[in-house]
């Protein structure tokens, strides 16, 4: 401390005021570069994912198909098989994986931030449990009451039910916690309790359902992008992006909240409103995507942690970074899932956990080091 004193004295007033600014500018520039690099990486992975797969499609085929559909004046020839595979199968699936990754990872980051707890994710707050129960209810009731017509309206029925249950679960958790004064611990415990309740409900439905419904239910619960359509992508993309914009708007408030509730209040943050808006909007994004993809764990928990090590805790950079990393993780996993033992597919949840869990443990064990310092 004596040394520290001496330094202060020798610096005096106005000695190195520019230094702080230089540090800030340098850090901000590096974080921006990292985000740009991630975007470029995503573009590259997207192109790669379009090329690989069971059906052989070359890179030039992909470019021709994209050019033919994007550039009106394009005159070249297009391989029709490639066009079908790329446009009808791969692209919607890839885009669904990207948007799902963005929404789950973004929601996980925001939920961890506003509840000040590193264990929180859409999964732990009971949302996935609620969505599963909603989907199970739709599948079991739908197959018994709708009969053959279930094959037509079934997917929408399942998605709507999963969304409603997932979204309402978060609101219910918040409502329960609100009765006790919105302590983060109450919220998380309420989420875990409701999660157990719903998982009991899902087990009961599994137990009482017939073979056909059971198979469909198991497949849904494992989660995957195989049902991807342009319609889903068109619906989810604006919704998720709008949610992310709203969440980014509260980045400073979340930063202040991580310093403690009392400090946040003193810095002018309306903590209760922040919690309500943050939870509602992130739950909306996450449950909307989960409704179409089924339960996909891990992304929402792991990518905020990876990104805190990569880019720091400032939510202005952390939320976009985590969204991009989540998208990359999910897209890579999904691409592996459909190519490793093609033409057979592996449920993507298995891949995310197989890659993610060991990687996450490695990060935890490794001495924490920030890449910019």
């Amino acid at each position, binding site marked *: 401390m004596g040394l520290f004193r001496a330094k202060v004295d020798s610096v005096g007033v106005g000695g190195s005021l520019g230094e702080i600014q230089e540090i800030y500018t340098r850090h901000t520039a590096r974080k921006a570069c990292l985000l740009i690099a991630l975007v470029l990486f995503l573009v590259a992975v997207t192109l790669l994912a379009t090329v690989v797969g069971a059906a052989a499609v070359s890179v030039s085929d992909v470019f021709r198909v994209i050019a033919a559909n994007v550039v009106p004046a394009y005159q070249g020839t297009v391989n029709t098989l490639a066009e079908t595979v790329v446009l009808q199968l791969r692209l919607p699936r890839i885009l669904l994986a990207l948007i799902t990754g963005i929404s789950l990872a973004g929601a996980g980051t925001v939920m961890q931030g506003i509840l000040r707890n590193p264990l929180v994710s859409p999964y732990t707050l009971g949302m996935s449990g609620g969505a599963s129960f909603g989907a199970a209810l739709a599948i079991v009731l739908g197959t018994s009451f709708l009969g053959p017509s279930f094959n037509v309206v079934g997917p929408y029925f399942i998605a709507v039910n999963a969304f409603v249950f997932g979204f309402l679960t978060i609101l219910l958790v918040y409502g329960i916690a609100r009765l006790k004064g919105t302590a983060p611990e109450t919220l998380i415990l309420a989420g875990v309790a409701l999660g157990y309740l719903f998982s009991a409900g899902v087990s009961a439905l599994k137990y009482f359902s017939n073979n056909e419904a059971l198979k469909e239910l198991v497949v849904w619960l494992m989660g995957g992008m195989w049902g991807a359509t342009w319609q889903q992508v068109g619906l989810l993309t604006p919704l998720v992006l709008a949610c992310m914009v709203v969440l980014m708007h509260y980045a400073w408030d979340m930063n202040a909240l991580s*310093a403690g509730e009392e400090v946040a209040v003193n810095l002018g943050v309306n903590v209760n409103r922040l919690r309500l808006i943050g939870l509602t909007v992130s739950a909306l994004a996450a449950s909307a995507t989960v409704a179409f993809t089924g339960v996909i764990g891990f992304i929402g928990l792991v990518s905020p942690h990876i990104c805190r090590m990569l880019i720091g805790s400032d939510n202005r950079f952390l939320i976009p970074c985590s969204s991009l990393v989540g998208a990359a993780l999910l897209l890579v996993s999904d691409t592996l899932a459909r190519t490793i033992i093609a033409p057979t597919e592996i449920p993507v949840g298995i891949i995310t956990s197989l890659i993610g869990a060991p990687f996450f443990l490695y990060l935890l064990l490794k001495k924490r080091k920030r890449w910019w310092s």
Partner: protein
Amino acid sequence: MQLVIQDIFFAYGSCSVLKGVSMEVVPGQVLSIVGPNGSGKSTFLRCLTRVLKPQGGAVFFDGRETAQISSRELARLLGYVPQAGAEAFPFTVLETVLMGRKPHLNWGVAQKDLDVVAQVMQFMGLAEMAQRPMDQLSGGQKQKVFIARALAQEPKVFLFDEPTSSLDIRHQLEVLELVGKLARQKRCQVVMVLHDLNLAARFSDRMVMLKDGLIFAAGQPREVLTPENVGAVYGVEASITDSARGPYVLPLRPVAAGTVPQQARQLPEILKWLKVPFKGKWAYPEAQGGNE
């Protein structure tokens, strides 16, 4: 700038914690609040920061009730320094201090914000550790960062909650000297909650002693720290010696409540502090800071 607290009443459920506390804080002076555990010190501070909403009474800045001030404006008037605790997620020192600019900025960080942050970090001697993550700092360094964050808010009033609770004696002195500097050099109003009676006596201009949610004694440290007051409020027999730097309290042994004579309770003094009718201007002999 005048901070007047009038007849604050607060209860957690049916348990009354503050039963009518009034005081006025003078610029350029440090006011410390002492009292045993559960006497309402921290609750009082939380009522000032609006973390808690008092059920009765009001806080006035220059005659404006704080309940009517927007939270953003209040954040520019009032800086709060919590006890050094654990952060949820590791921010760097620079990021933490920059958070203090939140009430001034929208989304982007302006040149002015960086200038203020740089000056504050210079003033607090933190410039060398700008890039260090908070979770690698010692308790004393963290406390300085928290003070720097409050300074970056550029407030008129500072509230400290036990600023020395987890610090060694060297850091205790450093932090409390800084607190005094804020009051005297920057002409700020400082309210701090302290457990250590001797540090409170040395580093504050005025003291308020709380007991069971009421002001038991108030005034100069010499007037407040008497064996009778310490006995009645803490249930402790104490020997108090008058040193050149103010009274020094040496606690001797706990005593049963009531065995210490209570006649020392300075009634006229307390009447002055409690239930004083407020008519826009409010003054009494202690407020010699030129704010009458």
